[in-house]
């Protein structure tokens, strides 16, 4: 093995330590430079400020919130954001512009990407609240939230509860059948094949599904789940 000259090795180590120290200091400095979100005022105040352009102000506030992680040319990590205040802002924007899908989109697509389960729960609660207020406008976001609960939070019960909410909506709420199918797919994941089969059978018998592709998909899933249920029961019989 070739022996390195000691001064060279020492120089490398010193510079490496300098680099680590510099990086650590700049990260700490960056966190110190971060301007936290201020608590929003009440919705009637913003409605008054809007001077008749409430929807536009709602959108502009949403864009401002979306850009909050970019300050003075620096991009800040979402972990620095206080999610309780963030949800207050999202609630406020929804109150100022109730016809806007923007805050729920920000919640499910951007702020829902956090890996912190507590923060994610706050976001999911927000999306669920918004869905309860206007299912027609927010069913896509609740479907996304259900996926987040399943894949990021690993909380199948929560995901199922959200999927059930979507499936329970009356026919007057227009949404594609796949959104309503979420429920039995999640039930299958929970090994609740009997419930999933019951739901699919009810769907097929009620003639609620007219699309032949959708019908074929349901029938395939039905036979698939029946097979899996049989396979599950087999070892217990043996």
């Amino acid at each position, binding site marked *: 093995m070739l022996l390195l000259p000691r001064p060279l090795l020492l120089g490398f180590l010193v510079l490496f330590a300098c680099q680590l120290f510099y990086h650590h200091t700049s990260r700490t400095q960056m966190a110190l430079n971060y301007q936290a979100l201020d608590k929003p005022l009440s919705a009637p105040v913003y409605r*008054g400020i809007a001077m*008749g*352009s409430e*929807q536009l102000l709602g*959108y502009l506030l949403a*864009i401002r919130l979306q850009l909050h992680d970019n300050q003075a040319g620096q991009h800040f990590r979402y972990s620095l954001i206080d999610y309780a205040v963030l949800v207050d802002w999202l609630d406020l924007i929804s109150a100022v*512009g109730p*016809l806007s899908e923007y805050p729920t*989109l920000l919640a499910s697509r951007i702020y829902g990407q956090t890996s912190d389960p507590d923060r994610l729960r706050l976001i999911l609660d927000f999306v669920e609240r918004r869905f309860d207020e206007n299912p027609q406008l927010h069913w896509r976001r609740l479907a996304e939230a259900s996926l987040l609960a399943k894949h990021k939070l690993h909380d199948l019960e929560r995901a199922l509860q959200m999927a059930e909410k979507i499936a329970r909506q009356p026919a007057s709420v227009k949404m594609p059948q796949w959104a309503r199918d979420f429920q039995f797919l999640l039930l299958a994941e929970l090994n609740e094949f009997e419930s999933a089969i019951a739901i699919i059978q009810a769907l097929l018998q009620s003639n609620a599904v007219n699309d032949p592709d959708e019908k074929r998909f349901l029938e395939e899933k039905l036979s698939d789940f029946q097979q899996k249920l049989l396979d599950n029961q087999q070892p217990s019989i043996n």
Partner: protein
Amino acid sequence: MHSQTISLFRFLMLGILSKRLLVLVTIMVLGAVLSGSFINELAIINGDAIQTAFVADFLRYSLALLTLLMITTSVAEDYEFRQFERLLTMPLARWQYIAAQTLVIASLCLLLTLPAALLVSLYANVALGLYWATALWLELFLLGVLGLLAILSLEKIPQAVMFSLAIYLLAKLSGLISLMLTESVKLSEGSVSSRVIEFIFGAILYVIPGSETFAENDVFFASHDLIVMLGSQLASVSIYALFLLMVCLIDFYRKEFNL
């Protein structure tokens, strides 16, 4: 008599058009288009609707300021160059000056709303473009008449502009002010002074334009009955503008000029 009014209107209108109106409007339209495009780039969804609404509101407020400045400058110059004294030596009634100024305001507002109509039609659709242009014309016309009253009474441009803007913003922010006063009554546990102020503001609201007097920006995000909205705005603006013109006439007839 009508031909005299029309001649006076032409003379006053030429004075306004010579004030680099086209350059100013071009700058405003450019500002609206650039900032609107920037906002469209930032928006994740509904970018086009947000851009249209933003451009419409940007033009609304910038054109409102421009209208006020144009009208007040025009009348202030008449004061400065003793135009009134000269006009009143001619066989011309005072009401004809007010009528000519009203025609000037109407024509100026029409000129100013054209770029707004064009832009909104391009960004959204022709129906919304026509709605916005008509609603904006009504709003600017009302503000122009308010500016005319202010400059006739106060005779100085800064005071007249400030007064007109104050009334305009008071009308626009009346909801917020009412909310603040209601909260102040609650916080002061119903003190007499707070109640009196709230009552006075309630009374003031009767003599300033209501929210239905202004163009409705929410039309860019949800479908509304545009005809009904315009009808309501037209009724409100007609009553208020006629009331303001009446006050203008009373004030102008009371004025004394050194003939």
